[in-house]
């Protein structure tokens, strides 16, 4: 039940169509781009796992500041090293696709922003998040004073139960207010 050598079987294709938000053309395109990442010997093996460095050569992910987190979240590897199989890749594209629901996008966005994987966004996660957004160079980083003010503003707005962290439902509550989220949380090959 993995990818065959060079073509997807018809029933496998329809199964993927049922389990993801991708259309048939998108799945075929994803398959093409994924097989381009494989070396010659890997192409014959079913269910190959591509290491994270090769995934990050894709132009859509190459300069994304969250690229490592994205690979980590969608990876089903036991070593948690961010390597992806083709099915993981399809899951990734499905969550980032045009027709994915707001709910699934916000769920995965939450997991991507949760840098320490503890199920909530605390001050450390928020600080790392803001640094990713503004860039790591010195002239685009916020000063410590601005960062402190910003994080306290964020927690004041979104932490409803005042426990100092933003959990999944509070996060989804903020996201539901923003009409831009669905259109910006999109990666199309």
């Amino acid at each position, binding site marked *: 039940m993995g990818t065959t050598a060079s073509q997807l079987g018809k029933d496998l294709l329809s199964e993927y169509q049922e389990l993801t938000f991708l259309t048939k053309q998108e799945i075929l395109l994803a398959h093409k781009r994924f097989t381009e990442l494989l070396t010659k010997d890997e192409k014959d093996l079913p269910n190959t796992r591509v290491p994270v460095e090769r995934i990050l050569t894709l132009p859509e992910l190459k300069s994304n500041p969250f690229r490592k987190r994205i690979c980590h979240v969608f990876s089903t590897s036991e070593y948690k090293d961010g390597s992806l199989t083709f099915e993981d890749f399809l899951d990734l594209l499905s969550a980032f696709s045009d027709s994915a629901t707001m*709910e699934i996008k916000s769920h995965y966005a939450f997991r991507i922003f949760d840098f320490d994987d503890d199920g909530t966004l605390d001050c450390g996660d928020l600080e790392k998040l803001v640094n990713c*957004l503004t860039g790591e160079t010195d002239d*685009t980083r916020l000063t410590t004073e601005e960062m402190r003010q910003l994080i306290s503003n964020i927690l004041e707005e979104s932490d409803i139960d005042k426990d100092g962290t933003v959990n999944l439902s509070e996060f989804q509550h903020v996201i539901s207010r923003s009409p831009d989220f669905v259109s910006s949380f999109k990666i199309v090959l």
Partner: protein
Amino acid sequence: MYSEPQRPGSRQVDDYIEENGYPSDQQSLRLRRVSSRVSNQNYPQHDRSSTPAEENDSGSSGPPRDLKAIPLPMALKRAVRQVQQMQVPVVSSRQSWRRKKNKSLQKLNENARGLLHFFTLWRKTLQQIGGNFGGGVQSYFLFLRFLVVLNFVSFLLIAGFVLIPSIVVRSVGTSVVNSTGADECTVYDPNPQGLVVFYNYFLDLLLGTGFMEYSYMFYGYYNNTMVEDSDFSYNIPLAYLFTAVFYFFFCLICIIARMGTAARVAVATGGSSVGNYSIIVFTGWDYGCQGGRATKLKQKNVHYQLQVDLEEEIIKKKAAALTLCQKIVLYSLRVFMFFVSFGLIVAAFYGIFMATNFSQEMSGEEGILGLLLEYLPSIAITIGNFVVPLLCDQFTLIERYTPSTTVIVTLLRAVFLRLVGLGVLLFTLWHQITCEGDTESEGCKLCQYNYEVYPCWETRVGQEMYKLTLFDLLINIGVLVLVEFPRRMVVDNWSNKLAQWVGRQEFVVSANVLGLVYGQTIVWTGALFCPLLPLINTIKFVLLFYIKKITLFSNCRPALKTFRSTTSTFFFLVVLLFGWGLATVVMVYSLAQIRPSMGCGPFRFFPNMWSIVPTSFYSLSKITQDFLFFIGSQSFSIPLFALSCVGMCYFVALASVYGKTVALLRAQLKLEGRDKQFLVKQIENLSRHQILKHTAGAHE
């Protein structure tokens, strides 16, 4: 802890979730279900996650959960699917029929979407623009694409109902109705006499005169023929009128439909706003950004936005701390600046008025001077639209509003200037056509319009609109070639301090959008008099798309201050509606008040254009007449009005209920959080007591 029987597949699923540190689907949902049973109906988007809990423990049949929306890896989704397939749901035949129907409908939907995907215009280009320049600039191009499609469909409408029947009728050659009224009014001979110099053709193309004037382009060419065959009748004047009116309604519906998506979000969330910062940080990143340069730009952008917001907060705090004396000074400055800018705008209007008058007086000149004089109104409007916003921008420095208010104030001023400027032009034309509204005066007594200067006034108005459209396009091309390319070459090759300070062109979205709205308003105003104008506008907008794309990619650097894309789309459509309103006023007035020309056009023997409707009305059958009378009468319209009021009240009430529910649930969540903290403290105290007891016991 939970005693319901769990199926093996779902246990596997729950294990996976728990080992990844997330509260089990069921556990968190159990908590939520208890406290928010009320909210289930009001939050359709959370419905999905609550159904599996209900499904699993009750074991009853519900609709099979949409597998795509489960946030799990593929292998586990397969497991869930197997579990679902193993469950033999006890469903009635009706439910299973409904489920099959839903599935086939979904398949149809997917196929349709796939097909639409293939036909979408400029999809790849828009993706590129969005990735490199951000959502704000992309929304401008999306708006432009919307207008292109709207104009093209309108053209098809007009072609189908007016143009093609006119062509058919003309070739068949039926007769014209007899004439009444003075003979001088019916004199209209636009065809040029004698030999025509070659460059005149080019001038005619630019001015809409000569060979273009007496063509399908303008109102004057259409005849008032009414074909009446044995089994087929077609009333061209009636078709012309109804097509024009329907065209306006059609555009209104399209605009409102497009506004609907953005407005829906505001209604559903009860109108309350969660703060800026969370939204910028959680939803600010555009994952479509490609390439190192675009990413760095977006990062700079986000950084700038956050800084501006933090700064605005500090400014607001400072403004609240101003003394009374300083406040008075600031407000009086603002009022003064308002009057100055208003005075500037009025001066621009006066300039347009004078230019139009002068141009109409001097019409008839030949050659290049004549061309310039004909285009004088367009030139005046363009200069006004360029100079006044530039000056007003300097005023905003003195007014010292917060950055967000400044943007709105600038935009409103520019919109006012553009649309009312156009209104002034139309008013001036009306002035001259109807001799300032006085039908008893010298020039207008005979035909109720100024027949000497305007033997066919509708064509004249159509020509003015045509000239405006063309001039707009020429200006855009001219600015691209003569201003933007040289500016880029100077900035890139001349490392002077001045050149660097001026810098590369920035793509200012608001100014460009206003240009589009202005162009579309001209087309709406002129569509009644120049039926082919939507087609010309379609071509113009397509050319404009490519021109703007070229200038964007070659000459521009991305703006540091950006718009938010959905609110800006909503704003663009609101401004477009203002333009539509202006055009509607013009159309209604022309239909109802001004006497149509007697020398040309489909309405030549009617006192006003609308009067053809009652005339044709009486030729319908008795039953249809009675039915239409009934619909127009009070016994139908008053109940209809009352019903729509009730409907509107219902929706307003619904929106306010949503808002109140949201507030209530937030308060509830706060309380629960506090309860949780209280209980945690209690547990800590108790365990401490236990430990102390133990150690005390151990000592003894």
